[in-house]
C-alpha cells in the first residue's frame, strides 16, 4: 500500500515536499541521537509542532505529582520535552482564508491524528491537540496537497499573517487587503531573511483605521490600507506600523512610514526583517521581540536603519510580480446575490440575524459569523460545514481572530435556509461579537505556561451569560471579554473591555487560582489602547466580579458613555475598592472549592507549569542551516539502503551545497539558492582564503564539493555512491570545524 508521500507526490509543491522530507529526516536523526535536541526543537517549532503541558513527564493528579513514563523513555524532542508526549500542531491559515476542500482535509486530520477537535486561534490558525510527533510528516503532506503549510507556524519566525475577516466585503475598507496578505505570506515564507530572528514576528493587515478587525497597532509589523494621490494618480499603499505587541510588556506600534506604496510593501517588509535579524536581541528572549529593538533605537533611528537596509535588499522580481495578478484575487460566490424576501423565518433567526449577520458592500450578500464556542468545532462539523459552504458560499470561508468561523458571500435570500442548516450542525448560536462570544487561549488545558484555566473560566462565564443574554442591557451585551491563562496575553486580554489573565496567590499552605482583572482595553481603532490591571481576584469569584462591574456600569454610566471612558472616569482607586470584597482569600477549610480551578476537580497546583516554547530555541542560523545539510545526507543514506544510487548522488550533492551555504551565510546572507553561486562564494571566501582548511588534510574536504560540482557523474554505481556518501560526511564535519574556528560557539 502506498504511503501518503507516494500517494500525494503529484499534489505537493516541490519546495513544500522538500521541507517536509527534510523534517522527516530530522526526526530520524534525532531518534538516533545525531541531531542536537535544541536544534531539533527549533526545527520542530518552525514546522508548527509544539509541545503541550505535561510533556516533561510530570503531572500533578490532585494528590501528588506523578511520573508519566512514556514508552520512548529518555528520548526528547527538545529540552525537557519527551518524545512520546502528545503535542500541538499549529497550522497556518493566512488571513484565515479557507476553501471547502481545505476544511475537509483539516477535519480528516483532526479525526485521524488528534482528538477530533479543530481549535481556532487568535491568529486565525487552526490548532490540533494531542498529536504524536511521528504522525506530523504525513499530516503536513496531506495539508501541503491542498496548499496549506505549517512552515514557521511557531518558532522564531514570521507567524501566520492575519487580516480582517471582512476584507473585500467591508463597507469601510479603503481596499481589500487579502491579496497583499497572501503575497506577503508567500514571499516571506521560508525566506532567507527571516531565519535568524531572536523571537517570533507577527504581521497583520487592516483595511480601515476605525474598526478593530486587523489590530495592526498590536503587531510587530502592521499594515493599514491607504490611498494617496501621487502625480495625479490614486495609488494604493499602506501606513506601516512597527514594534507593537501584547505579552507581558504591551506596547503600541509606532509609525514607520506614513505611506508605503504597494510596490514598496514587500521590499520594506524584507528590510524590516533584515534589521530585526541583524540588530535584534538573540540571547535574552524576554527582550528579543522587535518592540524592544524599536524602543532601544527609537523609531527615528530604527527608520534610518530600515532605509539604509532597503538599499542593500537584492532586486527580486517577486517584490512586485503579484501586483499583476491582483485582479485575479476575486471571489466566486456560489449564488447570485438576492434580497431577503418574505420567506417564513425559523425560530431563533431574529436574534441570530441581529448579531451574526453583516450586510456586505456588495448588494444582496451578507457575511455571517458562526459563534464557535471557545474556538472549538468537531471534525464532523467541519465536514458538514464544508458541504454547507459549497452549496451556499463556495470557498468563501474565513477564520477570525475572535476564534469564530465566517462565511462570506451568502445571498441574503438564503439566510433563513443557511441558518436552519447551521442549527442542524450546532453552529447557529447567536451573539457573535457580543459579551457571550468570549475569546480564550488554551491556558492550563494544554499550554505549558498556563497558570489558570482560561477555558474553564470562559466556559463558565459563557454558560451564565447565555442564560440571561436577553435580559442584559445593550451596553453590556456589546462588551468584549477576553481571557488569557497567564500574563503572556495569547487571549489578547489587553484589548478587551474586560480582560482576565491567570495568576495565583497563596492562602495558608495552598495555592489558589486567580485572575488579574484588566479593564478598559480598546478593540476598536485596531486595538487603539490597552487596558489597565486593577487587581487579582480568586478564579471562583470572577463571575460575581463580572456581574458587579457590569451592573455598576449600567447604573452609573452617562448616556452614550462607553466602557473605556467609564473605567477611566471611575478611576483605578475606586475600581479597586469595588473589587476589594472579592479579593479576600478564604481558607482551604472554609471554601475548598476555591482551591480548584474552573472545569478541573483537582486541588490546584502550579507545579505543572513547564518551560514555554513560544520563544522558540535560541539557536544560531548556522546550526539551523547545517541541520538541513545533515538531513539531506541522511536522505542520501536512505537512498543507499534502497539501492537508488542516482538519488544518493542528488541528495549527497545537495547536502554538501547546503553545508557550504550554511557557512557562507555566516558572512554573506544574500548568497541565494543557486548552487553555482554558493560554490563560487564558498570557494572565494573560505577555500581560497584557507579558512576552511583542515590542520592536516588542508583543502582536501572542500575539494570533494568542487569535484562533484565541476564533474557531475555520467553514471552512478554502488561504489561511487558509497564514496560520495563518505566524502559528504567528511565535508559536513569539515564545515562544522571551520565554523567553530571562524565564528566560535555554534549553539548559543
Amino acid at each position, binding site marked *: 500500500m502506498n504511503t501518503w508521500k507516494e500517494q500525494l507526490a503529484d499534489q505537493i509543491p516541490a519546495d513544500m515536499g522538500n521541507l517536509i522530507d527534510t523534517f522527516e529526516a530530522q526526526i530520524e536523526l534525532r531518534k538516533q541521537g545525531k541531531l542536537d535536541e535544541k536544534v531539533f526543537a527549533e526545527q520542530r517549532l518552525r514546522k508548527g509542532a509544539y509541545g503541550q503541558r505535561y510533556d516533561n513527564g510530570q503531572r500533578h493528579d490532585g494528590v501528588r505529582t506523578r511520573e508519566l513514563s512514556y*514508552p520512548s523513555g529518555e528520548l526528547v524532542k527538545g529540552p525537557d520535552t519527551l518524545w512520546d508526549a502528545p503535542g500541538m500542531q499549529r497550522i497556518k491559515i493566512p488571513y484565515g482564508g479557507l476553501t471547502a476542500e481545505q476544511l475537509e482535509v483539516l477535519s480528516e486530520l483532526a479525526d485521524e491524528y488528534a482528538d477530533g477537535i479543530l481549535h481556532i486561534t487568535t491568529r486565525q490558525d487552526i490548532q490540533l491537540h494531542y498529536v504524536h510527533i511521528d504522525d506530523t510528516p504525513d499530516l503536513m503532506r496531506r495539508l501541503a496537497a491542498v496548499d496549506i503549510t505549517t512552515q514557521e507556524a511557531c518558532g522564531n519566525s514570521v507567524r501566520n499573517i492575519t487580516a480582517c475577516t471582512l476584507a473585500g466585503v467591508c463597507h469601510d475598507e479603503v481596499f481589500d487587503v487579502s491579496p497583499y496578505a497572501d503575497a506577503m505570506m508567500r514571499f516571506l515564507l521560508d525566506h532567507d531573511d527571516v531565519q535568524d530572528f531572536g523571537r517570533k514576528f507577527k504581521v497583520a493587515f487592516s483595511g480601515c483605521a476605525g474598526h478593530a478587525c486587523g489590530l495592526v497597532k498590536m503587531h510587530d509589523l502592521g499594515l493599514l490600507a491607504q490611498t494617496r494621490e501621487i502625480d495625479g494618480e490614486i495609488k494604493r499603499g499602506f501606513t506601516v506600523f512597527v514594534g507593537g505587541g501584547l505579552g507581558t510588556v504591551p506596547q503600541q506600534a509606532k509609525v514607520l512610514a506614513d505611506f508605503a506604496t504597494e510596490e514598496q510593501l514587500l521590499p520594506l517588509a524584507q528590510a524590516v526583517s533584515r534589521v530585526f535579524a541583524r540588530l535584534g536581541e538573540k540571547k535574552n528572549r524576554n527582550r528579543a521581540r522587535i518592540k524592544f529593538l524599536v524602543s532601544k533605537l527609537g523609531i527615528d533611528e530604527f527608520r534610518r536603519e530600515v532605509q539604509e537596509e532597503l538599499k542593500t535588499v537584492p532586486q527580486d522580481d517577486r517584490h512586485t510580480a503579484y501586483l499583476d495578478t491582483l485582479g485575479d484575487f476575486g471571489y466566486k460566490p456560489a449564488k447570485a446575490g438576492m434580497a431577503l424576501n418574505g420567506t417564513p423565518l425559523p425560530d431563533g433567526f431574529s436574534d441570530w440575524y441581529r448579531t451574526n449577520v453583516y450586510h456586505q458592500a456588495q448588494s444582496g450578500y451578507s457575511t455571517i459569523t458562526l459563534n464557535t464556542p471557545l474556538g472549538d468545532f468537531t471534525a464532523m462539523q467541519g465536514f458538514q460545514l464544508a458541504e454547507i459552504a459549497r452549496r451556499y458560499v463556495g470557498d468563501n470561508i474565513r477564520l477570525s481572530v475572535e476564534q469564530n468561523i465566517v462565511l462570506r458571500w451568502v445571498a441574503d435570500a438564503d439566510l433563513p435556509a443557511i441558518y436552519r442548516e447551521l442549527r442542524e450542525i450546532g453552529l447557529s448560536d447567536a451573539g457573535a461579537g457580543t459579551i457571550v462570544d468570549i475569546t480564550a487561549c488554551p491556558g492550563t488545558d494544554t499550554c505549558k505556561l498556563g497558570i489558570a484555566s482560561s477555558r474553564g473560566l470562559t*466556559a463558565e462565564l459563557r454558560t451564565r451569560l447565555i442564560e440571561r443574554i436577553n435580559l442584559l442591557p445593550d451596553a453590556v451585551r456589546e462588551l468584549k471579554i477576553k481571557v488569557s491563562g497567564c500574563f503572556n496575553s495569547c487571549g489578547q486580554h489587553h484589548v478587551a473591555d474586560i480582560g482576565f489573565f491567570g495568576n495565583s496567590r497563596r492562602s495558608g499552605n495552598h495555592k489558589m487560582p486567580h485572575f488579574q482583572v484588566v479593564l478598559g482595553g480598546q478593540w476598536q481603532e485596531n486595538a487603539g489602547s490597552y487596558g489597565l490591571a486593577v487587581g487579582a481576584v480568586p478564579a471562583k469569584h470572577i463571575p460575581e466580579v463580572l456581574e458587579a462591574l457590569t451592573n455598576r456600569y449600567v447604573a452609573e454610566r452617562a448616556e452614550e458613555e462607553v466602557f473605556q471612558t467609564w473605567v477611566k472616569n471611575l478611576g483605578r482607586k475606586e475600581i479597586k475598592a469595588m473589587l476589594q470584597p472579592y479579593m479576600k482569600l478564604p481558607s482551604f477549610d472554609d471554601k475548598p472549592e476555591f482551591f480548584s480551578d474552573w472545569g478541573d476537580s483537582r486541588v490546584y497546583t502550579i507545579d505543572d507549569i513547564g518551560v514555554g516554547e513560544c520563544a522558540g530555541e535560541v539557536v544560531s542560523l548556522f546550526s539551523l542551516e547545517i541541520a538541513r545539510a545533515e538531513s539531506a545526507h541522511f536522505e542520501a543514506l536512505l537512498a543507499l539502503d534502497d539501492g537508488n544510487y542516482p538519488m544518493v548522488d542528488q541528495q549527497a550533492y545537495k547536502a554538501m551545497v547546503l553545508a557550504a551555504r550554511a557557512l557562507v551565510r555566516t558572512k554573506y546572507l544574500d548568497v541565494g539558492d543557486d548552487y553555482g553561486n554558493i560554490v563560487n562564494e564558498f570557494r572565494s571566501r573560505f577555500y581560497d582564503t584557507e579558512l576552511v582548511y583542515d590542520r592536516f588534510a588542508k583543502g582536501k574536504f572542500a575539494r570533494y564539493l568542487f569535484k562533484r560540482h565541476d564533474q557531475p557523474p555520467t553514471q552512478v554505481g554502488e561504489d561511487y555512491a558509497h564514496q560520495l556518501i563518505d566524502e559528504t560526511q567528511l565535508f559536513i564535519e569539515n564545515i562544522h570545524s571551520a565554523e567553530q574556528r571562524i565564528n566560535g560557539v555554534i549553539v548559543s
Partner: protein
Amino acid sequence: MTIVPNRLGVKFNLKREPAIAAADIVPIFQRWIQEHTVDGMLIDVIDYKHVPEGPGVILIADEGDYAYDFGDGQVGLHYIRKRNLPGLLSDALLMAFRLALGAALCLEDEAPGDIEFDFSSAKISFLDRRRYRNDLSLFTALQDELSAILADIYGCEIALERAYDDPRLSFALRVAAQTDSVDGHKLLARLSERPVGVQ
C-alpha cells in the same frame, strides 16, 4: 489478511440519556487517573462538553483515549486505540472492544442505575483514510472477514452495516449482536481470556 488501521475506535452507547451531567464526568476521570482505574498510561482529562455532538469529556492516555462521547447525537463511551495496536486485525478489534467494555463497566459503577450501556451494539471506527477509504466496495470486500471476527467477539451471530455513507467520513461500522441482550460483565470476562498479540 486485512491491515490494521492506525487508529481503531469502539463506542458503546448508553441505553438512555442519564441524569448525570457531563461536567460530573470530569472528576470521575480525574479520579480514574489517581487510582489507575482503566488500562493505559493515563495522562490528562480534557473537557469539550461545550461542543455539540463532540467528544465530550476525554481521558487522554498514551495508548488510547477514553471519551464520554456525544458523537452522532448519542451519549456513549468511545475508546480510540492510537498506538501499539496488535498486528492482526482480529487482535486489534479484540483489544479495542475489551478496553472500551472495561471502561464502560467502570463508568456504570460510578452511577449505578443511571449510566447503563447497551452492549449489544457498537460503532467501530477505522481512523485511517489511507488504508480504509469509506466506500461500499471496501465494506463489501471486508464484510465477511469483519463479520467473522465480530461474531467471534460476541459469541453469536451479528449484523453489520456501514455507519456513514459519506465518503469523506471515516470508514465506520455498526455491529449489532443478534441476541436479546448482552451482559457486559460476561462479555468482558470471556474476551479477557483471549490472548492478544501486541506489536
